[in-house]
């Protein structure tokens, strides 16, 4: 087990960089922003080496720091480009196309075959990632904060400067769009 006294603590941190970069890239669409967040994390870890004392898992500790850095990056981005409701309405139409004017399914969804098996398949996760990339940027940001960073709705609202209702709508649209996308690109082809 690595300890902070370890002379190659820096090297151990460096070995976690690819993992951290992947984690950050899932949330932050810009490669540059992801690299910055990881860099800040590794620097903070070096500076706060003693914080690691006694902890069992370096990766878990680093991921905890990284989540904070990612939220910082999101906060900066949403301050520069605040969310507008107009954009949100434009996204609405597409997701709700699956319903008729009375709010019933145009085509009733069929069950997916063996979704639990898909979880074990690398290609499925790749398909999921492509579906995530297809989401509108702000919708994806809220959804990834919820499901990837594990943030609560209240934190998402605060960081993105939106109301809880707005937040729930965004999460709903993300889920509906992803359901649709996975059905088309993965489950439907079997």
């Amino acid at each position: 087990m690595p300890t902070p006294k370890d002379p190659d603590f820096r090297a151990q941190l460096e070995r976690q960089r690819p993992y951290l970069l992947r984690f950050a890239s899932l949330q932050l669409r810009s490669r540059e922003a992801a690299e910055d967040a990881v860099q800040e994390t590794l620097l903070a870890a070096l500076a706060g080496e003693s914080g690691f004392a006694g902890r069992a898992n370096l990766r878990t500790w680093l991921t905890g720091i990284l989540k904070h850095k990612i939220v910082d990056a999101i906060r900066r981005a949403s301050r520069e480009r605040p969310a507008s409701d107009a954009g949100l309405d434009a996204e609405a139409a597409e997701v709700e196309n699956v319903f008729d004017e009375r709010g019933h399914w145009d085509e009733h969804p069929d069950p997916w075959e063996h979704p639990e098996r898909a979880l074990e398949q690398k290609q499925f996760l790749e398909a999921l990632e492509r579906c995530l990339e297809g989401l509108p940027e702000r919708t994806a940001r809220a959804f990834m904060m919820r499901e990837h960073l594990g943030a609560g709705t209240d934190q998402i609202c605060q960081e993105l400067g939106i109301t809880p209702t707005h937040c729930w709508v965004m999460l709903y649209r993300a889920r509906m769009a992803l359901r649709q996308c996975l059905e088309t690109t993965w489950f439907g082809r079997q």
Partner: protein
Amino acid sequence: MMLSCKEAMRIVSQGEDRELSLGERVALRLHVTICRGCRNASRQLRFLRLAMQRLSEDHST
């Protein structure tokens, strides 16, 4: 008052983010009991959380 499928899906999604009220839970249960499409789709929406967890844990580099 019966929920539409669209309303039912919104409640299913919000159930992933907040505690649903008793009224919402009852209305939703009533709806999915008779609506096969919403039964399937609500499983699929909940499955997304599992899929996202798997994606987050995926350590491949």
